[in-house]
């Protein structure tokens, strides 16, 4: 393999990490086009030569789905980009999505050997490059499934967990149907993540590739209402069910004024834009209310998405209000950086206490108080403590709360025997099995709020468990028969 990369490790270390080509901040706040264009072939090749090709490729351990990172980078060095993306696809069926939204800096790249003394290999950018290259050159070939199996599996929810589980099971030959409550597929990838981070076209193509595996997708189907899980087993003939319904129910702070017009959950705000196209009103029917000043409450990626979306909808002043300091913000560094480039103001160590309305019940301001960091709390982060008498009011017309979500309770309440813990999170074991045989769960529904890639890992683990479960069920009667004879 060293033939491919004649550079000595010491020489590789001297090469600078390649950066993405990005839309200038002043331009991009005027549109919903993708912020980053990724790296081009030349930069990708330079970046690939930086890889030290470590024998113990620690990056692979850092990847939640165990992509053969060293292997795909070596294929890039051979200019076999289609081979590289297929190598990724062995472990992850959504490379164009993960190359964009995965927090590589906390996973594969944080453990990269090169990163100890230098900057780590830009693994995420390389993943995106090969996925985009394959797309641009139309190199995708759908795998042929030869070992068709008769058993049917129902996947509930078409987000990252469900899609991954569906793809893995379809590759094993199972008859897979995904049930989606909304009219469009993708779950949080569709309604939550904005177009400027994940273009709709990329999403549509990745969805289509899942369909090409023979996966059926039934939209407009709310499991628990349109049919229950027990009906899936008893009437629909499904052998197993995977629940990947995410954490879609938004939390609210519970402060006065949340009923005012102009107060949104981040879920509603983003759904109106991402799913319903409210940014195109009146060409699209769904409206969205905007203001000159917008306050988004929260410090996670959803808060970042909401505040950056509000800027693109025309807010002059887009504020992010977070009660802890910058260090504790759960959002990706890259997102915070992009937000600041776009003129988003971060109001840190600040906590809203009430939302103020005008005589027409419209938001006109938000009252906040200053916070300071006290002793560490259960999460290990220093607990924010209110500074007495520090209240102040900021004039805003729109308030968006992005303070977390919890699982939608419909399936839990309509599936007897399905055990749940805190806030309706479904209890699962390390194989993604639930308290009910044949029912598996993963993603935010089983985690309460995590990342796309962790949801995908759960989907993958669940697919293997579902396979074991279905096969073990088949063997049970045969063994009984053998004993009888």
């Amino acid at each position: 393999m060293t033939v491919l990369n004649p550079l000595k490790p010491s020489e590789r270390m001297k090469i600078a990490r390649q950066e993405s080509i990005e839309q200038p901040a002043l331009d991009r706040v005027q549109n919903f086009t993708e912020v980053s264009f990724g790296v081009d072939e030349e930069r990708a090749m330079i970046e690939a030569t930086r890889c030290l090709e470590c024998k113990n490729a620690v990056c692979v351990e850092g990847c939640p789905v165990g992509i053969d990172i060293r292997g795909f980078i070596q294929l890039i060095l051979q200019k076999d980009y289609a081979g590289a993306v297929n190598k990724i696809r062995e472990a992850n069926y959504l490379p164009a999505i993960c190359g964009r939204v995965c927090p590589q800096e906390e996973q594969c790249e944080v453990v990269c050997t090169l990163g100890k003394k230098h900057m780590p290999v830009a693994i995420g950018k390389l993943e995106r490059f090969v996925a985009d290259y394959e797309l641009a050159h139309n190199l995708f070939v759908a795998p042929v499934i030869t070992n068709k199996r008769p058993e049917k599996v129902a996947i509930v929810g078409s987000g990252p967990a469900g899609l991954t589980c569906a793809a893995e099971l379809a590759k094993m030959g199972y008859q897979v149907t995904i049930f989606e409550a909304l009219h469009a597929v993708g779950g949080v990838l569709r309604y939550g993540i904005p177009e400027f981070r994940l273009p709709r076209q990329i999403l549509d193509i990745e969805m289509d590739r899942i369909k090409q595996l023979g996966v059926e997708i039934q939209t407009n189907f709310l499991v628990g209402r349109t049919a229950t899980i027990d009906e899936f087993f008893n009437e629909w003939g499904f052998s197993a069910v995977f629940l990947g319904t995410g954490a879609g129910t938004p939390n609210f702070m519970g402060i006065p004024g949340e009923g005012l017009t102009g107060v949104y959950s981040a879920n509603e705000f983003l759904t109106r834009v991402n799913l319903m196209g409210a940014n195109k009103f009146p060409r699209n029917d769904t409206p969205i209310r905007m203001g000159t000043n917008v306050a988004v409450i929260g410090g996670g990626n959803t808060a970042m998405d909401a505040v950056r979306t509000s800027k693109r909808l025309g807010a002059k002043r887009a504020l992010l209000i977070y009660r802890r300091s910058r260090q504790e913000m759960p959002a990706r560094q890259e997102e915070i950086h992009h937000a600041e480039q776009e003129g988003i103001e971060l109001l840190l160590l600040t906590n809203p206490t009430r939302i103020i309305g005008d005589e027409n019940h419209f938001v006109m301001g938000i009252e906040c108080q200053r916070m300071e960091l006290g002793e560490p709390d259960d999460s290990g982060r220093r607990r924010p403590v209110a500074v007495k008498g520090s209240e102040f009011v900021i004039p805003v017309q729109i308030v968006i709360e992005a303070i977390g979500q919890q699982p939608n309770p419909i399936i839990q309440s309509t599936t007897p025997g399905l055990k749940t813990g805190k806030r309706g999170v479904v209890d699962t074991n390390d194989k993604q099995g639930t308290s009910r045989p044949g029912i598996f769960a993963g993603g935010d529904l089983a985690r309460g709020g995590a990342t796309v890639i962790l949801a995908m890992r759960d989907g993958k683990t669940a697919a293997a468990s579902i396979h074991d479960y279905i096969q073990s069920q088949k063997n049970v009667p045969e063994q009984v028969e053998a004993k009888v004879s």
Partner: protein
Amino acid sequence: MFPILSKEDLAPTVSKFLIKAPLVAKKRKAGNFVIIRLMEEGERIPLTIVDSNPAEGTITLIVQAIGKTTKQLCSMKAGDSILDIVGPLGNPTPIENHGAVACVGGGVGTAELYPIAKALKDAGNRVYSIVGGRTKELAILEAEMTECSDKVFVTTDDGSYGTKGIVTDPLRQLLTDPQIGIKAVYAIGPLPMMRAVANLTKEFGVHTLVSLNAIMVDGTGMCGGCRVTIDGKMKFACVDGPEFDAHQVDFDELILRNRSYLDFEKISVEQFAAQQAAAREVSR
């Protein structure tokens, strides 16, 4: 796609649709609603299911052309199709035998009330119904309500039909008559009407259920746009309701919230009217 099998105009702005939606029809109970979307650029709106026929795989919707989407739907005909329908959504109405009940419908709300009145009658109740409307044309479904009621009162705001007045007039009579002994009230109609009913029945201490038509996007508990204040606590009309104890509802807040997009609605309605006019011009 969900084909419209038949359409009947009940009033100049109110139409009744029979729609093929087998999965919804199979599971639907009184009180459930659907979310519909007419086209790719369309919005998602909630509509209560008036009736269903599981054997035929059909549901019935009764729609008043008020906003852009309802106007567009009412311009559609048998043979056209609705792009998306999801349901049945929301909790079904709790139906029990109270003895005597009053069912109060206002305008197109009577369409939503009708399946509940029918279910209450089937459960053994004596059903006293009040059908209200601003005008004769908007006091709908009198015949259907008569079929499932022991007695029906009709009121119109302008006196063009039935008794001139509002629904609370006959309701007060019913509540004050000890021989009738109303034990529960079900009211569906415009928010001010439901608020008036709630205020009245509170005086008499009679349990009252209302169905709240909050603004929704997904209708499955995801957006929180339909949040309503019930007994001081935040609830989502789509998954916690749509029916709530009328005496605990903060109607004033909901009335204001439902005005959130009136300016946008006006733009959409005007644009749709212009498109309709242009289409008529072309067909001429």
